[in-house]
């Protein structure tokens, strides 16, 4: 942990994510209330950033076309976007670890089938699948999480499969087997804990990816539905007023880029810190 924070990339990534998470957590304290609140629409819409509306209320990031405060929506949107990203990645991690571990530990037709499915799923154009699933069923937050989770597990499965296979042949596993450890115990308490390093890195990178894809789906109106704010549907709503009020689309986009950069840098730093071959004396 200390080594991770001593790495400039890791420190930056952790700091940004921490700040965004704290903002999302304490959203009511940092904003003036309801993200969907509309006051006098005609008088308060398109207030530019860093200025006050007619009633003297200050808007740090301006207001959108319904007179809603962009900063409030951004902070509440962080709850939705981060939540969707985190849960979706959790789903794909569980699936990926399970499939990868089984395929790596039990050889034979089962492993061949699972690996075949993984390779197949990797070759499927993900966005096409996402569009299809999201368009054919009623769009909702739960569906977005499920779809992102179900289309993101393949790389994790491949990583875990490789690690488990390599670890299963190592002497310490052979030793545990020799003293009569049950197969599930071998897998659960000897092999998997050692195979999780690349999974942690993949998770950090995956969260950024999932948040971007959620935003993409919301952009087409297929993701999180308004008036619930998510960064994706905020960008989408800013598209129509790009000329009048560019800040409506710009603010959530900047937030999104910042979070994805933080995830990527944290993932890079984690990989270097967790990789024993790069631990210099």
């Amino acid at each position, binding site marked *: 942990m200390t080594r991770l924070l001593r790495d400039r990339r890791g420190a930056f990534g952790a700091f940004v994510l921490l700040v965004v998470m704290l903002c999302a957590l304490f959203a009511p304290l940092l904003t003036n209330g309801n993200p969907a609140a509309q006051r006098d629409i005609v008088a308060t819409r398109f207030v530019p950033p860093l200025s006050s509306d007619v009633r003297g209320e200050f808007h740090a990031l301006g207001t959108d076309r319904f007179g809603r405060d962009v900063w409030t929506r951004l902070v509440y949107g962080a709850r939705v976007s981060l939540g969707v990203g985190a849960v979706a990645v959790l789903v794909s991690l569980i699936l990926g670890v399970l499939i990868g571990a089984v395929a790596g530990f039990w050889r034979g037709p089962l492993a061949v089938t699972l690996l075949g499915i993984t390779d197949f799923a990797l070759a499927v154009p993900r*966005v096409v699948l996402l569009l299809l699933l999201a368009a054919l069923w009623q769009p909702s937050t739960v569906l977005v999480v499920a779809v992102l989770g179900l289309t993101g597990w393949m790389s994790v499965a491949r990583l875990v499969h490789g690690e488990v296979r390599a670890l299963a042949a190592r002497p310490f596993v052979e030793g545990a087997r020799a003293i009569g450890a049950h197969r599930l115990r071998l897998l659960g308490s000897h092999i998997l804990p050692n195979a999780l390093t690349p999974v942690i890195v993949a998770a950090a990178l995956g969260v950024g990816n999932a948040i971007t894809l959620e935003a993409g789906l919301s952009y087409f109106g297929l993701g999180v539905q308004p008036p619930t704010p998510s960064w994706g549907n905020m960008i989408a709503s800013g598209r129509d007023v790009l000329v009048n009020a560019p800040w409506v689309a710009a603010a959530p986009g900047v937030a999104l880029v910042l979070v994805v950069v933080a995830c990527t840098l944290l993932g890079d730093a984690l990989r270097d810190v967790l990789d024993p071959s790069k631990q210099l004396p």
Partner: protein
Amino acid sequence: MLARLGHRLLAAVAVVLGVVALTFVLLHSAPGDPVALMLGPRATPEQLAAQRQVLGLDRPLPAQFASWIARFAKGDWGTSIAKGRPVRVLLGAAWPATARLVGLSLVLSYLIGLFVGAVQAARSRSRTDTALSVATVTLFALPGYWLALMLVLVFTYWARVLPAFGAAGLDSDYLSGGAHLLDQVRHLALPLATLTLIGIGGAARFVRGAMLETLSQPFITTARAKGLTARQVIGRHALRNALTPVVTLLGLSLPALFSGAVFIEAVFAWPGVGRVLVEAVQARDYPVVMAATAVSAVLVVAGNLLADILAAWLDPRVRSAAA
């Protein structure tokens, strides 16, 4: 080599078939009955049944799928429900635009990415490296549709220099050679810039990693010990060897690039396969969705296959390992 190629081809065909089958099942298991939508709420059960029989929707799913495949293979891709035009005409008009956009951005982003990544690896841990790293990570993190909007804002609304929509101006048919080409290039500029900028981020990050890995190997030490200049070591020895994983990534990044193109085409109203697909999905235009999915799966799989062959051609070790 031939046997391996045959094996890969077989796997590729299986993937395409699988994707198409998956789409078929998804379309048919989704809520919403196209026949009920077609005939309206006042249709009697008898009318619904009759229409289903006419469309062949009363047969079991496998039989419907088999007949769709047979017709697709014969070149009969059906007629768009929403637009009333043959699906083949729709897609035939769309794919060159996508191929032009994706192909050009692939070449550009890898050429620039290779250069940036090589420079970074050659000056590893210098200020240049750090600055370029920050730049590539940011590019890599940019969501395509958002970057597209921002570019439109700057270049179309503020600077008023580039058009934001479509692949050609309204008057393009009346323009002569040079002006026609200029019109096309101007329309291509923003979508291409968006896709390429994002592509550079991923490519440069990967090239830097592959180059650093290669530079730590003994033959590089030997090359340096021989007294070769840094330029020779990087350009002739390291870059060539780092190229194999890059080419493989190029193939693997094709699906992502195509996915990205779907969003970009929608933003810029670029008349490509992606936009046809998005419009068809939103309108539940089943024949178009099926055909567009099949075509995009073929494109992606063919790209992967091509990258494999290219990697084998570049790297004798891969070639001999396969033989």
